[in-house]
C-alpha cells in the first residue's frame, strides 16, 4: 500500500483529501504545517506528499526546500495542492522541486490523475 502525507492547515481539506486518498488505496497521514511534515518525513518518508502553500509556522515552499536539502534517503514525490493558481506560483513550485501541482478546488478525478502522472497511483 502506498503512503501519502497530507500537509494542510485546513482540517476540512485534510479530511476531504484523506477520504479520496483512502478510496484510492493510500495509507494516509496528516500534518498541519511544514515543520510537522518535515519531522514526519525524517522519521518515515511517504511515497507522496500532498502539500498546501500557505500555512503557519512553515510554509509549503519552505518545507519543500528543506525536504529537498535534507538527507532523507528516498525522494518522496511532492504534489502542491493550493489556491495559488497563477503561472508564476506554479513555475516557482516546479523550480523548487515539486513534481506536480493541483489547483484548488480539486476533485477526485483531478487528484487521481495527478497521482498517476507522478507514478504513485
Amino acid at each position: 500500500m502506498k503512503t501519502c502525507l497530507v500537509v494542510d492547515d485546513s482540517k476540512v481539506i485534510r479530511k476531504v483529501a484523506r477520504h479520496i486518498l483512502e478510496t484510492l488505496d493510500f495509507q494516509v497521514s496528516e500534518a498541519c504545517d511544514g515543520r510537522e511534515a518535515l519531522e514526519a518525513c525524517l522519521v518515515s518518508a511517504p511515497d507522496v506528499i500532498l502539500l498546501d502553500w500557505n500555512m503557519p509556522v512553515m510554509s509549503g515552499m519552505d518545507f519543500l526546500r528543506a525536504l529537498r536539502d535534507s538527507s532523507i534517503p528516498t525522494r518522496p514525490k511532492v504534489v502542491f495542492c493550493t489556491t495559488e493558481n497563477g503561472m508564476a506560483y506554479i513555475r516557482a513550485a516546479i523550480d523548487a522541486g515539486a513534481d506536480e501541482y493541483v489547483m484548488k478546488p480539486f476533485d477526485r478525478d483531478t487528484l487521481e490523475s495527478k497521482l498517476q502522472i507522478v507514478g504513485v497511483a
Partner: protein
Amino acid sequence: MTATLAPPVVGAIPGSPSAMTVLAALLEARTGQQLSSYRSWRLDTALKPLLRARGLDTLDQLVMQLLDGTDRAVGDLIVDALVNGESSFYRDLPIFDQLAEAIVAHEGNGRRVRIWSAGCATGQEPLSLAMLYAERQAETGTPVPEIVATDISDTALNRARAGRYTQFEIQRGLPIRRMMHWFDGDGADWIAKPELTRLIQFRRLNLVGDRGPAGKFDVVLCRNVLLYLSPPAKAQVFALIAGALKPGGTLVLGAGETVIGQTGLFEPSRRFRGFYERTTAERERDAA
C-alpha cells in the same frame, strides 16, 4: 431505442415520460446514440441551460417547441446538449505509448502520417496528440502527423478550436510541465497556445450519416463513442471508419470497447496489441 427510461428525478426539471421518450428518439435519430437508463437521469442537467435560455420551466414545454416545428434550431440545440462530451487529456495514458509505436511503424512508409480523432468532444484527445508530436518534432525533427478532429457538437468544437479549458478540465490528465509549456492562464481558464491548436484541423461531422473526412488515414481514434450507439449505428460507424483507413491502417477504440462480436470489418491487430485493423478478407477485397 432504450426500452425503459427512468422517471423524472425528484427535484429536477419536471418532464413527463412521453417528453423523455421524444428526446431520446430525437437523439437516436440524429446521432445513433441511445439514452441509457443511467444517462436519462442526467437529462435534466444537460438541458437545464437550454431551458433557461428559452425561458422554459419543463421538458414538456421544450418538446412542444420541438414538435411544433416553427423553430428548426431547437432540435440541433437539444442534440448538442445531450451528446456526451466527457473528455480528458491523455485519457487511458498507456494507449498513447502504444500509439507512439504504431505511428513510428506507419512513418516507416516515408510519408507524413494522418490521424483522425473521431468524436473529439472538446478537443483534449487531439490536443494531447499534438503536444506529444510537437515535442517529438522539437527533439528529433520528425514532422508532426496531420491531425483531423471531428465531432457532431458545434458547441464542443467551438470550445476545442478555442482551446479554452476550466481549471477542472485542464488538470485532468495533463502533466503540469506540459500545461506550463502549451497553455496560458486567462482568469480562471487556461488557453492552448495558437502554435498548438493550429496543428489540428477541426471539422463538424456526424459519424452516423455524414461522409468521412477527405482522404485516407493511417490511424483512426474513435474512443468511447461506440458504447453509446445502437447496433445499426455502430455498423454505420465501423463502415465509415473502414472506408477512411489506408490499407494496413490502425483503429484505436476506448478501453472498454472492442470489435469482437460487433463487426466483420475489423479484427484485433497482429502488429499493435489492443488496436484493430481491417480483416484479411476486407484487405483482400481492397486489393482486388
